[in-house]
Structure formats: C-alpha cells, structure tokens
C-alpha cells in the first residue's frame, strides 16, 4: 500500500476522523427506517462520548470565523496517538483557531480517486485545505481542481523558502504553499546489522537479505535507487526510472526485501524484526524516541525528499484556507509547530524560533552536507507508465 504515515500537520483533539454528529443524524434520518426513539437514542449515545467533537466546530460559520477544515496524512502527532503532546502543539499554534483536522489522506492516489467526482464538479467535499504531496498538487492544478490562493489574505506567503518559491508547475505559488519537507533515508540497528550503513550499497549487502524493508511510494523508492545508480531523479528521464525499477525487481526477486510497504514498516522496525528500513524522516524520529539505538542516515549518494503541499480544492472555502496558511507561515508560529512535528519547515525564519535541541536535529534542520533531491514532475502519461511498471515490479 502506499499509505504514508508522515503526517505533517497535526492539529490535535478536534473531530476525530470522520465523525460528525450532524452528518450522522442526517444519514440516520436518510435511512428513513428509524423510529423517532432510535433517533433519540443515537443522539444520546453519540453525544455523550464526544469529547472529540469541537465545541460547535463549523457552526460559527461567520465570515471572519477562524475555522478551517483540513485533510492531511494520518499519524505522527495525531490526536488519537499522543493527546498530551498534541495539546501542547494546539496551545502553541491554533490560538483562536477552530481546526477540523482529518487524517483523510492515506496515499495520494487513493485520496484523489476517492474525491475525484466532487473535485471535478467543484463540489464541497468537506475540506478547505488538502495536503497531498507536491506532484499530486501539480496534477490537481492541471486538471482544474484547485482554487488560487487569495494572495492579499496571505501576506506571510513571502516567507516561503526561496528554493521552493517557484516550482515549474505552479509559478509564483499561485495555487499552493509547501507544508512540510521530509527526507527519505535509511534507519537501522547497528547491533543487528553488524556494520555501518552509509550508502544504498551497504543496505543491499547480502547479509541483510530478508531483513530490510523499502517503501511502496514509487517516487521515494525509485528515486533512491536512481541516486544509487548515479542518476539524478530531478532531471532523469523515463528510461532511467524504468532501469531503477528493474534493479528494485532484481533485488526483490532475490528475496532481499522483507516487505515493500507504506507506513506500516515502522511496526516491524519498532519490534526489531526489521533490521534496516528505507523510511521517512518524521517516522524514524518517532521510532527513535523509543529505540535510541536505531540510527538514521541519508545515503551518501544523496537522498530523496518530498514536499507535502497545501492546496485549496475547488469546493473549499478559500478565505478560511488563506487565513490558516497565513497563520502558520508566521515564523513565530511555524518554529514550535515544525519542532513538534519533526519535519523540515518551508518557512523562512522558523528555525530561529526553535529550541537548540531542534536546531541540531537532523530531521528538522538537516546539515548542508545532506544532499536532497526532489523527483521530477512527471507528465501524466509517463507517470502512469512508471507507476504501472513499479507496481508490477513490487506487487506481483
């Protein structure tokens, strides 16, 4: 599966995934089969335990209401996982904000396909801001599924890192703003592995056969192998990607990989059944907090990075989205936010607002020696071809 766990934005506590009492009652009523008694019973039962329901979340509704509905990736500091840490973050960043935060994105493609009918029609499907990965945002823009950001409401837009200010698929960031930057690296237990891993070549040594996992996210895995093979994923063509896929398949056929998964690799890594894994920086940071002997390296040939990016779907409320973007692009807010979620901030000056510990973290503030590459923005047709080849190589 291509679910990625890395969840950037992690605003705690509010409506937990998918449950909204009014929706619930509406659906229940729509069933048309329920007696009034049952309806009342359901109201009672769903209301009583709804600590997770924000106090009147979207009811405020007014023009200036600081409320926003966000679709992001599962996990990390999701409310359900770490409520108290989440509460700290909440205090820091969403002062006055009523955030309906849903971990609705499990992987880019499924999320898009799920809501494609609404996106095509420009219907509101419950979110003002979505945070897919940059390449998916590029696709939304070209399909006409996105709204432009009302720039006048986002003066802090100027704080975006220069390197990210002008992607070819969204010049001047008319539609999108980066949310978080993650790195793809190798996590391993030196004791179990028995030697130091510094490169992909080490990771692929026969001693580790059947003890390692790689990611099912095409760009992250293929890019990592391309870098190992001396290609540059930012510029390389389709043929190079296919060569890298053939190399992945060769190792898979040898039984080198225990699993090719999305986020669930952290489970076996945590148990120690996986000795080494290609993983996402934020995840590894949280596993490391429990397993201090777990080491993180970015391969010497270079590492892939990804940018999860905020975009306003056509049916969303642009004003709410813009207000929220402006809020978190304030370096004073961004500093503690990115420190808490463990990803690199795209906001200039955010690092200056972090503690010393965070400033020296390789996850939040990687040293200049770490060479990061982003996958080239693919045309739709070649993306489909490479995706197919990748899934054929890794799934069958």
């Amino acid at each position, binding site marked *: *599966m291509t679910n990625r766990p890395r969840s950037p934005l992690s605003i705690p506590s509010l409506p937990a995934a998918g449950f909204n009492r009014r929706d619930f009652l509406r659906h229940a009523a729509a069933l048309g089969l329920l007696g009034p008694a049952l309806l009342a019973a359901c109201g009672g039962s769903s209301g009583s335990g709804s600590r997770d329901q924000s106090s009147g979340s979207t009811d405020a509704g007014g023009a200036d209401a600081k409320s926003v509905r966000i679709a992001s990736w599962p996990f990390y500091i999701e409310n359900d996982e770490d409520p108290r840490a989440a509460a700290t973050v909440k205090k820091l960043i969403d002062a006055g904000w009523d955030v309906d935060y849903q971990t609705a994105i499990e992987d880019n493609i*499924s999320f898009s*396909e799920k809501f494609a009918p609404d996106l095509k029609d420009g219907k509101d499907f419950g979110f003002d801001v979505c945070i897919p990965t940059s390449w998916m945002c590029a696709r939304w823009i070209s399909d006409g599924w996105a709204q432009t950001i009302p720039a006048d409401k986002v003066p802090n837009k100027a704080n975006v890192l220069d390197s990210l200010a002008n992607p070819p698929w969204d010049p001047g960031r008319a539609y999108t703003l980066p949310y978080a930057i993650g790195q793809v690296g190798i996590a391993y237990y030196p004791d179990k592995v028995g030697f130091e891993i510094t490169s992909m070549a080490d990771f692929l040594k026969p001693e580790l056969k059947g003890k390692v996992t790689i990611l099912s996210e095409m760009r992250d895995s293929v890019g990592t192998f391309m870098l190992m093979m001396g290609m540059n994923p930012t510029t390389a063509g389709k043929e190079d990607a296919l060569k890298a896929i053939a190399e992945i398949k060769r190792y898979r056929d040898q*039984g080198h990989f225990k*699993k090719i998964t999305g986020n669930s690799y952290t489970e076996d890594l945590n148990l120690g*059944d996986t000795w080494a894994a290609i993983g996402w920086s934020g995840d590894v940071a949280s596993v490391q907090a429990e397993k201090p002997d777990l080491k993180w390296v970015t391969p010497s040939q270079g590492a892939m990075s990804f940018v999860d990016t905020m975009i306003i779907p056509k049916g969303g409320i642009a004003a709410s989205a813009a207000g929220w973007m402006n809020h978190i692009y304030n370096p004073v807010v961004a500093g503690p936010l990115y420190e808490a979620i463990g990803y690199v901030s795209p906001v200039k000056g955010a690092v200056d607002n972090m503690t010393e510990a965070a400033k020296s973290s390789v996850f939040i503030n990687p040293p200049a020696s770490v060479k990061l590459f982003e996958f080239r923005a693919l045309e739709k047709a070649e993306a489909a071809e490479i995706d197919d080849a990748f899934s054929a190589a890794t799934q*069958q």
Partner: protein
Amino acid sequence: MAAPAKPAHGENGLRPARPSIPWILLMPGLVWLGVFFVIPLVQLGLKSLDDGGLGNYRKVFNDNGEVIARTFVYAFIVTVAAVLIGYPLAYFISMRSGKWKPVLLAGVVLPFFVTYLIRTLAWKVLLYSDGPVAGAMRSLGLLSKNGEILNTAPAVLGALLYNFLPFMVLPIFVSLDKIDKRLLEAAPDLYADTHTTFRRVTLPLSLPGVFAGSLLTFIPACGDFINAELLGSDKQRMIGNIIEKNFLKESLRPEMSAMSFVLMLLILGGVLMYARILGTEELA
C-alpha cells in the same frame, strides 16, 4: 430443498390461504438481497469485462497467477489441517467429555468473542523474533539465531487456521452429536471393534459435518487478507491483499473485479456441488 409435499402441515408447512401470502412476507428481504447482493454480483461480472473483455482475466492470471495459486493452496492447507486438528477435538467433546460438554463447546466458540483484528494481532506478540514462541523454539534448536516466524508462511497459515478452526469444529460436533448412541452401542454387540465401529458407523455419519466445516473454513480463508497483511511478508500475499491495495483505484476496477470473480466462481462451483450432494437445508 423442499421435499415433495406432504399433507397438512408438518415439515413443509401449511398451504397458504392465498398463494401470495408467503411472497408478501418474503418481499422486503428478497428485494434487499436482490438489490444489494444479486445485482452487485452480476455487475461485478460485467465490470470484469470492461475495457479489456476477457483479456482482463488473462491479465489477472498473468500478473497475479502466483498469488491466486497461493491463495488456494493456503486455503486448502488450512482446511485440511482444520479437519485433522478439529475432528478429534469435536469427537472428544461429543463422545467423551461427559458433563463438561457445554463448557468445552463454549470454549470452542470463545475466540469469536474477541475482536477479529485484535486476536490476529495477538499472534504478533507471540511470534515476533524476540518473542516467547521464537525464544522457545530457539532454545529447542528448532529455529536458527536469525530465523524468523513472523512474516513467514507458517505464521500466516497458523493464524488463518486459528481464526477459522471453530467453523470446522462446530459442524463436525453437531453431526457427531446427532448420531444415535444406541447405534454405537449396538456395534460391539455385533463383534465390531472400536476401530471398525468408527470407520463403519461414526465416520460416515459425521461426513456431512466435515463437508460443511470444510466449506465454512475454506471460503473465508480464500477471501482473507488480514492474516497475510498483519503477519505475513511480501511472499505471503493472497488475492485479498491485491484487491485491498487497489480497491479505491477506479482504473483498476475491471481487473480487480475479474480477480474477485475468479475467486467467487471457484467457490461457487464447490458450494453448488456440495448443495447437490447434501441439499441446501442441511447447509443452512
């Protein structure tokens, strides 16, 4: 299946005052099953021919032949193992457990009272590399230092067997328990030894239970993806895992439909064969 009509009521019921009465009673349920069970299946068949026609099936067998074969091999192994393990247990409960019978029977059903996902995850606790089972096996010399149980075929098979074993034990128990014990008492009088009694009397009479149990084990085992996902690796994936990975992808619907249709047809064939032999009333 309804047997030839007998007078008055009895097993086959009354003749309704008006022929429409039973159909009126049946209608709401039939409509529900028609719309949400029959139509989707027909649609699944049609969908599996979208885009590529029968080529979809060829593609499914080409791309996932190994997974399809593995699914049936796994389900078969699990079913056979369940018979071998479950039959003696059912026999013991039915014939030799005396006043403990209801308690032991409740014990067989007990796993059903624990949430499926959670009881499957419990195997992870037992089987991981530094866990109790692996540790015990290492100290007995049955597992090498770096050997693993979790993420291997035995882990997946063991958990599948665990999850569906009660489906085997219960029907066998029922058919054993129905046997008139006087028959078994009569056998020794006719100079048959225990062994012969079992082979000639008990076993044939319990076969319907074995058949029913086999289906009830084989079917869910075929369609499962949870055990392979939670306890298996790349090398243990089953049909369900492929469908689960792709079910939201619109573009792959025809192919996934073809795959589930293959699964369904093979099982349906088995069920119909079984229904012909034993009748649907028995199965229900």
